[in-house]
């Protein structure tokens, strides 16, 4: 049987089966009017979901058969840089060719531009599968996402010129935001955009750094369009189609994802097209890009974790010590159990988050219509709030989980896992970037905390608390209701906190609770349709309950000691 990273993974198949995107899809496919007439357009919901299965199966086969077997080679060879020219490694080029042949590019673009019109929730699964096969390749496949931002905000002429090339896989993309002095603080971007009043054309000058897939043919670039401005309000977003004025000065020598070239780019009077409105570059368009990218990186970390778990699972069957496979030793079994449950919990959270993002995108189009009903507006607002809360949560949860799982997998391997010959060595290096780029974990906490303090999770928690579950899951339900209450009191305590420094300091302890609680409820919900999820839910709830209570105690106490110790010890 051929290797297939979709069909060999019953948990992704389960998530696809459970994925309820009927509401979003009805809007997205405009009531299925194109079904049967426009090639590839679904006739109904079942047809659409069957199409998604096809896309996942093909991606699973390409990744299992063609990409994964060359992952070590892609890492070893890495991207090259010579005389100002960046080239992908041979395995990366072959993978891109396979994706092109399989028609997997243009994932979320509308059909009018040759795209597959996939929802975010399916795209997340695709990214997970790619990342399990070769995590560096995810940046090449994942950055086609800039096409969706272009689709949403660029002018018609630009869209017609650029987007079909993305759908055919002829071009790849890059998000060009970071500079040497503007990392987490993007408001400090200094690359200049100047408007030639006579021709109405824009030109860019400046240097960008740490640009993932910076060799891309089409980039979106954040630049300062308002002379004399110093903050985010002076920034606009531009589209650049690579030409001779774009110089790649170097690529970085990185710890992991080596097949993905990270470039330093110099713009020398480079022609650019303004995307959307001036001054909205960071606040609207970069944030839009970043939200998509955060989901993609969450999926990337999940894919790496899946790979790491499988490596540990396999190794622990084959490695004999004390006369038996090491997996039967409780200390090793504990690691494996923790990994397995963590991966499934995160996959549930990613699917839930993507579903709300799909709804948000679907209603975003609805509310831009002339006549909008109050119900539609309310639903839109609800979806926005949940998407904006869950996105940083899942980015934080998944990337920290991915690091933890790779650490645990290496522990299962023992000494050999530290060696090049074993895949976990590569996965361990690759996963490390995920909780750094597209906003560090610390920044995800900042993004989530305001929403959590606004009680944005309450509608979900109330719905889940009121729902019914299998009888034999009553103890878990009771436990989660209790934990929901504990979490609620933590929110109250932090909300009532008048010392801003304390709120910031203890924010991560509240976000941890929220992540655990949501994952717990999602796994319990799964037990309504799956017998095997009962063990997952039980194990998960049992492991998070005491930790959540401890974290609540931390938040409620909001001890001043660390804040007082800081100036003395760290300064």
């Amino acid at each position, binding site marked *: *049987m051929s290797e297939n990273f979709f069909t060999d993974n019953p948990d992704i198949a389960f998530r696809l089966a459970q994925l309820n995107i009927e509401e979003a899809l009805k809007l997205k496919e405009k009531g299925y009017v194109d079904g*049967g007439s426009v*090639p*590839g357009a679904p*006739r*109904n919901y*079942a*047809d659409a979901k*069957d*199409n998604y299965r*096809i*896309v996942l199966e*093909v991606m699973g*086969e*390409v990744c299992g*058969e*063609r990409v994964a077997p060359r992952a070590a080679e892609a890492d070893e060879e890495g991207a090259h840089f010579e005389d100002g020219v960046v080239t992908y490694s041979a395995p990366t080029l072959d993978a891109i060719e*396979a994706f092109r*042949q*399989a*028609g*997997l590019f243009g994932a979320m673009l509308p059909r009018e531009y040759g795209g*597959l019109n996939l929802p975010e929730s399916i795209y997340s699964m695709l990214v997970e599968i790619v990342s399990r096969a070769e995590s560096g390749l995810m940046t090449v496949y994942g950055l086609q996402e800039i096409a969706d931002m272009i689709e949403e905000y660029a002018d018609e002429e630009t869209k017609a010129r650029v987007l079909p090339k993305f759908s055919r896989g002829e071009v790849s993309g890059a998000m060009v935001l970071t500079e040497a002095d503007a990392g987490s603080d993007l408001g400090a971007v200094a690359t200049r955009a100047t408007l030639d009043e006579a021709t109405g054309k824009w030109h860019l000058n400046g240097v960008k750094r740490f640009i993932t897939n910076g060799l891309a043919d089409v980039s979106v670039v954040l630049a300062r369009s308002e002379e004399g401005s110093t903050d985010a309000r002076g920034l606009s977003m531009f589209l650049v189609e690579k030409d001779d004025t774009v110089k790649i000065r170097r690529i970085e020598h990185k710890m992991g994802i080596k097949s993905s070239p990270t470039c330093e780019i110099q713009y020398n009077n480079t022609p650019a097209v303004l995307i959307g409105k001036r001054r909205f570059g960071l606040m609207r368009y970069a944030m839009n890009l970043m939200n998509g990218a955060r989901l993609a990186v969450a999926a990337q970390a999940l894919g790496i974790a899946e790979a790491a778990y499988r490596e540990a699972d396999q190794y622990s069957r084959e490695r004999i010590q004390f006369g038996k496979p090491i997996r039967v030793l409780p200390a090793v079994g504990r690691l494996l159990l923790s990994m397995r449950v963590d991966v499934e919990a995160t996959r549930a959270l990613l699917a839930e988050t993507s579903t709300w993002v799909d709804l948000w995108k679907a209603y975003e189009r609805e509310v831009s219509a002339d006549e909008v009903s109050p119900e539609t507006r309310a639903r839109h607002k609800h979806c926005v709030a949940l998407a904006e809360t869950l996105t940083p949560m899942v980015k934080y949860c998944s990337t920290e989980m991915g690091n933890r799982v790779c650490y645990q997998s290496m522990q299962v391997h023992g000494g050999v896992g530290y060696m090049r010959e074993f895949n976990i060595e590569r996965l361990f290096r690759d996963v490390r970037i995920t909780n750094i780029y597209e906003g560090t974990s610390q920044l995800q906490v900042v993004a989530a905390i305001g929403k959590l303090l606004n009680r944005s999770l309450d509608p979900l928690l109330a719905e889940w608390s009121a729902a019914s579950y299998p009888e034999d899951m009553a103890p878990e339900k009771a436990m989660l209701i209790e934990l929901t209450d504990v979490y609620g009191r933590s929110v109250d305590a932090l909300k009532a906190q008048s010392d801003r420094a304390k709120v910031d300091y203890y924010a991560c302890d509240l976000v941890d609770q929220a992540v655990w609680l949501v994952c717990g409820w999602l796994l319990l919900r799964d037990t309504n349709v799956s017998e095997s999820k009962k063990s997952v839910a039980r194990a998960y709830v049992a492991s998070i309950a005491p930790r959540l209570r401890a974290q609540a105690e931390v938040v409620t106490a909001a001890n001043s000691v660390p804040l007082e110790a800081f100036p003395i010890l760290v300064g």
Partner: protein
Amino acid sequence: MTESRPLHSVVLVKQVPDTHNVTGDVMTKDGTMNRNALPAIFNPEDLNALEMALQIKERTGGTVTVITMGPPKAAAILRESLFRGADKVVLLTDRKFAGADTLATSYALTCAIRKIGDYDLVLAGRQAIDGDTAQVGPQTAEKLGIPQITYAEQIVELTSTHVTVQRALDSGSEIVRCKMPVLMTVVGSANTPRPANVRRQMERKLAATPLEYAAIRKDWPEFETDEALDAYLAARDLRIPVWSAEAIGATEGSIGLAGSPTQVHKVNFVVLESAESKTITPDQEGIAAMVAELVREYIVG
């Protein structure tokens, strides 16, 4: 590449049990295979033949038609061919074809290719992983009265009249030039077969022979009658034609069991058992002795 004209290819493919992944309960005590215990797959080298045909089409234009002879469920590999880029597919199925050996199979395929008529190239995998005879391709060429190039690995040149091909041989390779039409059998090292294209698959997933309508309607109840489904498929050119023995004008005595002189004399059930192990001392002498033994036993060298 040299100037050519649009070339029309016919690709012969076969659905086979996945014998490369035989598991415990597949072999019966008397040495025959329990076919149902193995998944049915696209014969691997037939995928290489299809890939070669698609690459030729991309170079010169033209069409790719895929034929298989087999039971109704063999339509699955015809769909896979469509997903990869084939223009037309045909299923040869008839109870009268059952029990065919390579002679009867190549006869039936010859009749079908003649019915198609307009072709420049016939491509097939070198051999199928169930029978492993490698006979059907060459026999078909003989019956069609056209030249054949076996073990084709690479198209070196295409002109409007000739094809130049590199053949993979045990001892190296050979380049031959041949007038078209020609039949080629393709080896696994020829290329990497492309994956199914998701856009093509979404558009053609319902492609079917009428023999499959009942199963499709079970999955897609929106098609209330066979007629409704048939009309939907016909409008989108998704009806897979089924050719019977009569349709291809085959002579009864030449097809199926009646047309198959091959008789299996005896099947040996070989059980591979691990022999006793041998310890080699980790020194110069031990290694030299091992190398000498491997050479003597024709394992290396």
